[in-house]
């Protein structure tokens, strides 16, 4: 068990960090949902056809992450068996009370969109398979086996509408998570109107980054060439959103520094003494500067496709770490300094235990397992070889 190291004075109840690793994981997974969904919408709503190869996968990815977005909260709650109180007896003065509704709405929406997108595939399998599988697919198709051109046209209309509703919903879902922190006036590290916007932007970049990495790995695994136009477009989006994200993250701290209210004294100590690695080195250092510069070249310069993809992959991985570090710095950082503004505490997650590293890893792995099972039932990618690699 990690021994808590405190310096200066803390109110006696502040020695323990109340929001643990699980609360770091929760906005991280939610962010991946929002980001992945927005990529799928870029194709379905904004007609970015070059993203077609990844459109279905991004939707399934969003769904898989969404299924597990709440689980870290359940591991954190003092009384998880009362979790549904939040929906049965909500108190609407609380920002948190809307979570159950926003989450459920979004889950249903993504589920419906996936159903429409995969319906032709489901129907095909319902007609082709035999035995128990036939029943499974028939149930999945909800008994509707009509895939005539007219029916598909209606399907596409629904997909477009659902995706269009999905964009503001994805923004609400994650902007809302940021609002949970940004609206807490008791904590100067959290309380800023920038917080929801920062959460949203970092959500989008993390979603794009994880899709790039997953897509690349899956294609390698399937021994199929990647679609370079699709990846190139993703790098451009990633770079663009990351610039805005990083600008806002920097502005937030610059404002604190420049205004130098009395709390800046302890916040600056927290950043330099407690978060020097996760903030200074990861969030604002290597994982920001390298992607910012390199992605610029990757997005704009003509270069060898292999090199471009390798650089793009490295940058995506760095950005995934950057966003995780950002979640850590917000959630844990906000609890490392005392509200007396006179002292600092420490937090190191345990390996075992309800809110430990092992549980976090298992929870984070679950969406990938869901994607795998989904792919067994309904192939996410077409099996025909994609465009050949070209420079």
């Amino acid at each position, binding site marked *: 068990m990690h021994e808590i190291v405190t310096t200066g004075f803390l109110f006696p109840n502040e020695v323990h960090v109340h929001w643990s690793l699980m609360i770091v994981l929760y906005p991280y997974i939610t962010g991946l949902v929002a980001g992945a969904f927005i990529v799928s919408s870029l194709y379905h709503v904004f007609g970015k056809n070059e993203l077609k190869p990844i459109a279905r996968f991004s939707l399934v990815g969003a769904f898989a992450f969404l299924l597990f977005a709440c689980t870290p909260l359940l591991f954190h709650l003092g*009384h998880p068996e009362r979790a549904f109180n*939040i929906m049965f007896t*909500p108190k609407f003065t609380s920002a*948190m009370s809307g979570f159950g509704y926003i989450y459920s709405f979004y889950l249903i929406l993504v589920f419906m969109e996936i159903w429409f997108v995969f319906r032709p595939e489901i129907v095909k399998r319902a007609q082709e398979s035999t035995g128990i599988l036939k029943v499974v697919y028939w149930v999945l198709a909800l008994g509707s086996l009509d895939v005539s051109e007219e029916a598909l046209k209606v399907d596409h209309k629904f997909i477009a509408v659902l995706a269009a509703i999905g964009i503001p919903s994805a923004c609400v879902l994650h902007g809302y998570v940021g609002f*949970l922190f940004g609206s807490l006036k*008791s904590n100067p590290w959290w309380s800023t109107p920038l917080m929801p916007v920062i959460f949203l932007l970092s959500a989008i970049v993390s979603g794009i980054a994880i899709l790039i990495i997953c897509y690349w790995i899956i294609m390698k695994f399937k021994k199929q060439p990647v679609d370079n136009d699709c990846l190139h477009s993703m790098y451009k989006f990633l770079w663009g959103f990351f610039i805005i994200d990083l600008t806002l993250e920097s502005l937030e701290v610059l404002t604190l520094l420049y205004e130098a209210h009395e709390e800046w004294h302890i916040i600056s100590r927290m950043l330099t003494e407690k978060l020097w690695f996760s903030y200074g080195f990861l969030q604002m250092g290597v994982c920001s500067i390298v992607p910012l510069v390199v992605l610029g070249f990757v997005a704009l310069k003509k270069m060898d496709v292999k090199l471009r993809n390798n650089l793009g992959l490295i940058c995506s991985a760095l950005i995934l770490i950057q966003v995780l570090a950002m979640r850590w710095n917000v959630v844990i950082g*906000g609890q490392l300094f005392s509200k007396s503004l006179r002292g600092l505490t420490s937090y190191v997650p345990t390996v075992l235990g309800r809110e430990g590293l092992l549980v976090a890893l298992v929870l984070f792995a679950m969406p990938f397992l869901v994607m795998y099972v989904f792919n067994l039932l309904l192939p996410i990618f077409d099996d025909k070889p994609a465009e050949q690699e070209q420079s």
Partner: protein
Amino acid sequence: MNQDRRTFLKKSSLTLAGSGLYIALFPMISGASAKQQLYAYIVDTEKCIGCGKCAAACKKENKVPDGYYRTWVERYSIMKDGEVIVDSPKGAVDGFKPVKMEKGKIEKSFFVPKLCNHCASPNCVQVCPVGATYVTKEGFVLVDEKHCVGCSYCVQACPYGARYVDHFGSGVADKCTWCYHRVTKGLQPACVNICPSDARLFGRIDDPKSSVHSILKEKRLQILKPETGNNPMVFYVGLDKEVR
């Protein structure tokens, strides 16, 4: 003409509906609570001797788990060079040991008892997602331990560090209740009852016989962190600028 009237009616009814919705939603999310405050708590920092009996009595009375505190006492030692040292070992349950320091280094020293402020506009009540933290009709801020989900949002929202969730025990939010169970029986809170120097006083605001009533009328008082807008109902006499 007809068309104009129709447009006018359409627009005005939309405006009306919009403002109606806004007016209906505003109090819902602003969390303003305008209940009458019947009680107040006075802390006279000039009288506190730092014996810590209040913190110990509270622990015993309310069976507060180890490592957490419903009330505590802080000791401020202000040096001649301006340095401020604050401590509250174990919430001062066992009192304080003398400060070991070279003679003449300390400018002044004093004690500040702390507890839940039972605010008139409590942020903890505003943020509780399930309504487990609530204000009683007398103005006490309490937690329904059978309904609390243990999300710790209220702990984060309290600017005074007055709340905690014992994750290895009850798993619900807890804090000072101003000894509601005693007050409703006509008794004083345990900390007030045991204080040997009358540094802690509690009573009805509207009771002319209560010392709280006269102090509120006569003394110049301060509250903690007024900028948060929580409107605490714990008032301090002789609060130093160093206290947060």
